[in-house]
């Protein structure tokens, strides 16, 4: 399968704090890569460097064979192709669900509004939220908001989706409804990079799991090997921190 994303040796520092230390990652089309690692190890920073919300100090991000230049005037053209969903949903509070969904397609892709709305309704139906189309974000539960946020990213039909701990702010009973949407997307063949602390979900959804610690990739592998036969001591310790025995 062809490669969509090629991340080469990216590094990021905040003052003296090295957050990313020459990270490499290649993602094939249709692949689901899950990133795990202790809090503060740089997972969010890593995702934010991919769509240039954060500027890298070194290295490069190559999307479809083209280097993403953070200085590019047309950076927004590149960001269109990279969907991102945040832990805190970040729906636009002054817009209804439907308005949230059609904003970018209409303004950025210059899609016809009627068509954009049709597509929005189709996707809303798919995540079970058709009845909420005219509600404001404040009228939705966390799980509903997050499903709308996923749909909003899908509306741009991105080549790759970045999900940053999208269930971390949710009450436990809402986690499932969101993760099921993501599982569904994986089945459909969407390319995704997912940061999560939900290890059973990671196991179910991932083609490949990557463990980051101290700004570096310590270990990566297929989910079965990764979780059942970790090779490094650090990963063993990390996985152990999720068990109670």
């Amino acid at each position: 399968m062809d490669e969509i994303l090629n991340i080469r040796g990216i590094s990021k520092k905040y003052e003296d704090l090295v957050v990313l230390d020459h990270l490499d990652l290649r993602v094939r089309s249709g692949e689901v890569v899950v990133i795990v690692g202790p809090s503060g190890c740089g997972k969010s920073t890593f995702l934010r460097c991919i769509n240039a919300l954060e500027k890298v100090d070194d290295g490069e991000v190559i999307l479809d064979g083209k280097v993403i230049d953070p200085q590019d005037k047309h950076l927004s053209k590149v960001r269109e192709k990279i969907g991102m969903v945040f832990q805190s949903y970040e729906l636009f509070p002054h817009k209804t669900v439907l308005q949230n969904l059609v904003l970018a397609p209409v303004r950025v892709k210059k899609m016809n509004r009627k068509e954009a709305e049709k597509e929005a309704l189709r996707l809303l139906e798919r995540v079970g939220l058709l009845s909420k189309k005219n509600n404001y974000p404040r009228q939705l539960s966390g799980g509903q908001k997050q499903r709308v946020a996923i749909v909003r990213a899908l509306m741009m039909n991105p080549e790759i989706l970045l999900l940053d701990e999208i269930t971390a702010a949710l009450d436990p009973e809402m986690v499932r409804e969101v993760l099921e949407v993501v599982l569904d997307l994986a089945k459909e063949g969407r390319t995704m990079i997912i940061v999560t602390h939900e290890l059973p979900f990671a196991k179910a959804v991932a083609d490949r799991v990557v463990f980051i610690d101290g700004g570096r990739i310590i270990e990566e592998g297929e989910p079965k090997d990764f979780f059942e036969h970790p090779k490094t001591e650090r990963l063993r310790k990390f996985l152990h921190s999720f068990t109670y025995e």
Partner: protein
Amino acid sequence: MGFELLLKGNNLGRLFGGLAVALKISLLSVCISLILGTVLGSLMNDRHPLIKGVLRGYLEIVRLMPQLVLLFLAYFGTTRVLGINISAETASVFVFSFWGTAEMSDLVRGALSGIPAAQYESSMALGLNDVQTLVFVILPQIIRRMLPLSINLITRMIKTTSLIMMIGIVEVLKVGQQIIEANRKIDPNAAFGIYFTVFVLYFAVCWPISKLSKYLEKKWEA
């Protein structure tokens, strides 16, 4: 009780004229405050400590200083010390704008800082550029947060214009006093009726404005 004086001569017309003077000064000041306040408010979140410090200082001073003192300072102070002769109306607009700009800039600052950085980011992540993000995502939120509060400032300004008679401007309250004075002999109890009328005039102007603000607040509550 004084109400009959309203029909005498052009008294009612004069009261309206006084009200118009007050409204003119407050509306002019509001417009200036809106523009300057927006500029200063966006600067207040500036990283530069000097700009931030100066602006905070300005806001504190304006808040602590009674508007009447500012009026006297601007009107009597400048003519004597600086030798420039500004009209009482100019002095009033200056003082009200000075005050309104400070209040407005704090409103803008508050509204801006209340918008999480992630709102900008989620908009840009969708592919909206800087201008689109500002126009479609950030500004609508700022306006919704600010409008009810700035309307409130407008009503406060209109009420405070009653002070400008102290520097010789004949606004509605002053007109009222003049009418009472002029009729002291024939109608010693005119004060109640005239002041009540002044009250009704203020109310008639401020109440709809305040209602509008309540309505917007409800409509946009987030």
